[in-house]
């Protein structure tokens, strides 16, 4: 087994802020050498909370840290000509460049794709913006909430009639970063056959369209518009029946729903069995022929009849008891977990999912999510904390780019690095 991951030979320059820094993180998890380039003073995202002990510190923004582990870090001011020249030298040796500037910024700096590819025709430039490099909204300003709204996702979250909702943790940058990594690697596959790079234009709004699941299918199929259902699901039966998915349990909530098909039949039978052990199954549920039940044509009355005793049953169990029972009984449901539940989940320990940073960095051992998938031929790269501001300046500008100690001192003096 090879260490350091499937993308070990490649170098990535990462000029992103919080709107796209997860892309470089994903490539670093795959073993690529990702160099985060920050302006002198550091990425503004270093000031996004929370911080350990709620004490702001640019080295300890938990938001920044989350998506910059595994990277090396240098500082570079792209405004002075000398900074741009230095950047070109770095770009000449890079396989990928990821950036999140407003469209047109790199061109204004004289560092547009056409310029960079002249010296490095194999370069893949990945640009991540709220709406893309061209089009009527290309200059619109975005943020997580804005693109969550404009992707249609919010229209599908929340109580009917009440305010549409987002998730209370930015999701747009994660979707965009993920699809940016996919776009980069699609372009990379082509580069290795055609020997030339290309420009990958990633839109955050477009990336989120996949978070809508089958929502767009309702419009494409019948010109109907799916709407939000609160804690119930609609659109699973042609009768329009609403199906409850969130149930209260002893210490929180569960997500359980009646399913159709073979898997649903087994799950529904197990539910009634469990009810009956607890003395909650109604006569008609005990007699129900699940082989003939079809979720896609079920009626509201039929659903309500199942949901009543289900709610009573689940109130008797905790989240973890439910999970254990659901697993044992082959029922289709999971708890509504919070961060603590996830950190305490023994299944993730079985899989050695977490990577632990020792206490020298953040004052206590801290567990970070492991890589998103296991590759049988490579082991994940060694855990590397997110870089401090300019941490690898000497290593990268000196040893790797060949600048002398005095050059580096001078560039520092000129506030280029």
């Amino acid at each position, binding site marked *: 087994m090879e260490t350091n991951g499937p993308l070990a030979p490649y170098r990535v320059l990462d000029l992103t802020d919080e709107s796209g820094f997860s892309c470089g993180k994903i490539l670093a998890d795959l073993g690529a050498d990702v160099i985060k380039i920050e302006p002198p003073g550091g990425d503004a995202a270093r000031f996004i909370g929370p911080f350990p002990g709620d004490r702001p510190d640019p080295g300890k923004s938990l938001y920044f840290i989350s998506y910059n582990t595994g990277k090396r870090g240098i500082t570079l001011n792209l405004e002075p000509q000398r900074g741009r020249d230095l950047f070109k030298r770095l770009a000449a040796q890079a396989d990928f460049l990821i950036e999140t500037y407003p469209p047109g910024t790199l061109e204004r700096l004289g560092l547009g794709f056409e310029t960079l590819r002249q010296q490095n025709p194999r370069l893949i430039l990945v640009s991540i913006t709220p709406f893309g490099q061209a089009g009527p909204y290309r200059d619109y300003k975005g943020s997580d909430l804005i693109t969550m709204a404009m992707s249609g996702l919010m229209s599908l979250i929340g109580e009917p009639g009440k305010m549409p909702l987002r998730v209370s943790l930015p999701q747009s940058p994660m979707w965009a970063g993920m699809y940016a990594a996919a776009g980069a690697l699609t372009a990379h596959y082509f580069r290795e056959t*055609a020997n030339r790079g290309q*420009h990958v234009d990633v839109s955050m709004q477009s990336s989120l369209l996949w978070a809508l699941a089958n929502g767009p299918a309702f419009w494409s199929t019948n010109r109907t518009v799916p709407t939000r259902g609160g804690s119930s699901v609609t659109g699973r039966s042609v009768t329009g029946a609403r199906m409850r*998915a969130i149930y209260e349990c002893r210490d929180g909530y569960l997500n359980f729903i009646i399913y159709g098909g073979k898997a649903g039949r087994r799950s529904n039978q197990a539910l009634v069995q469990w009810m009956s052990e607890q003395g909650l199954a109604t006569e008609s549920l005990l007699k129900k022929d699940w082989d003939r039940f079809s979720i896609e044509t079920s009626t509201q009355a039929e659903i309500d009849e199942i949901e009543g005793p289900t709610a009573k049953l689940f109130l008797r169990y905790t989240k973890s008891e439910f999970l254990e029972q659901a697993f044992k009984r082959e029922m*289709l449901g999971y708890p*509504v977990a919070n961060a603590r539940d996830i950190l305490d989940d023994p299944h993730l320990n079985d899989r050695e999912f977490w990577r632990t940073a020792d206490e020298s960095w953040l004052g206590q051992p801290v567990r970070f999510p492991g890589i998103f998938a296991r590759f049988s031929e490579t082991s994940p790269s060694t855990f590397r904390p997110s870089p401090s501001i300019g941490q690898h300046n000497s290593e990268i500008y000196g040893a790797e780019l060949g600048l002398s100690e005095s050059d580096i001192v001078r560039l520092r003096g000129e506030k280029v690095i």
Partner: protein
Amino acid sequence: MSEASPKSALAGIRVVEFAVFAAGPVVGKHLGEHGAEVIRVESHASPDGFRVHYPPFKENRPGLERGGSYALFNDQKLGVTLDLKQPKAVPLARRLVAKADVVIENFAQGVMDRLGLGYSALRELKPDIIVLSSCNQGQTGRRAAQRGFGSQLTSMSGFTHLTGYGPGEAPMLLYGPYVDFVAVGFGFIAVLAALDYRRRTGKGQHVDLSQYEAGIQFLTPVLLDTQLNRRVHNPLGNRDPRGAPHGVYRCKGDDRWCAIVVFTDEEWAAFCRAVEKPEWVNDSRFANAESRKIHEDELDQAIADWTSQFDAGDVMARLQAAGVRAGIVDSVADLFSCPQLAHREQWVKLDHPEFGSYEHLAPPFLLSETPAELRRSSPCLGEHNDYVFEKILGLSQEEIQQLKDEGVIA
């Protein structure tokens, strides 16, 4: 039948899918968008769930070829039928794998092994095969074999808990199997990374993707905060600790809303000018970021009073013209007339025998040299049996007919 132009980035790759619903099949769709030849294996005995028990159906009438979700998730593929319960079907499936580069499966852990199609068996046939196994909780660990769906797994992965109107209020569902689609993106990435590794080393491999672990990647900041600050995050409606206003505001019309975000005092000044409320700039309740957070209820009310007089689109255009972050809460219908998405040719109409014309979703990234080509709508069940079994596997017409008669290709 491989119509991919040589300019497609992934031309020449052949993918076989033993997959159901979304988490596996949408990875195949993405590979197909850039020219991979993707063969979807199904059967009449066990058609995809999106064909049979999930609306929408064309004109609300269920039918094997009338499922809208299937159509959305399976364009760019060839469809074949093999009833894997028939003894003669598995050897055919294995022959197909021997001609492939990538296999995608998203059954519960153990199912492929029991069919004789697990990674170790497939590697015997094709030593450099890449197999993506995507399941709820991964191939190992105490709950590896647990069956489940993304709509519930989204809750165990932490997203539902973070979605709601405020702390102490019931969690709200994200729409559909959110985490399945997170796993789709990561599965797509994993296949591409494994393809590069194979190109360099000649080795295939098995990729074990836990949809749960994929989802957790999107939540890292709260996991760190919980460890370091002993805090469990709760939903905040649409508010954000970084600034105010930060929310969606009701506009004219039925269920019309506009999102507005202001972080800095400069942006606030620009906002006040744009909405012609210069007095707000000096209003002590709203004068700086900190006071706006303290008086956020009043602030939200004042802004909603203003937005409710206008169309959401006008609010967005006016604020964006002033450099303020604003965006319509698009309905699903709005997405099909959004000028930005239209500019990116996000929806591609293709003909389909049952749907007539159907709008397919193009990828979220545009490649300058090798643009995606959406050229084939989702396959009808078994539509490409003759092509695949004759041209790829080299069976004769007679053999194919016999296998159909025997219920193997069925």
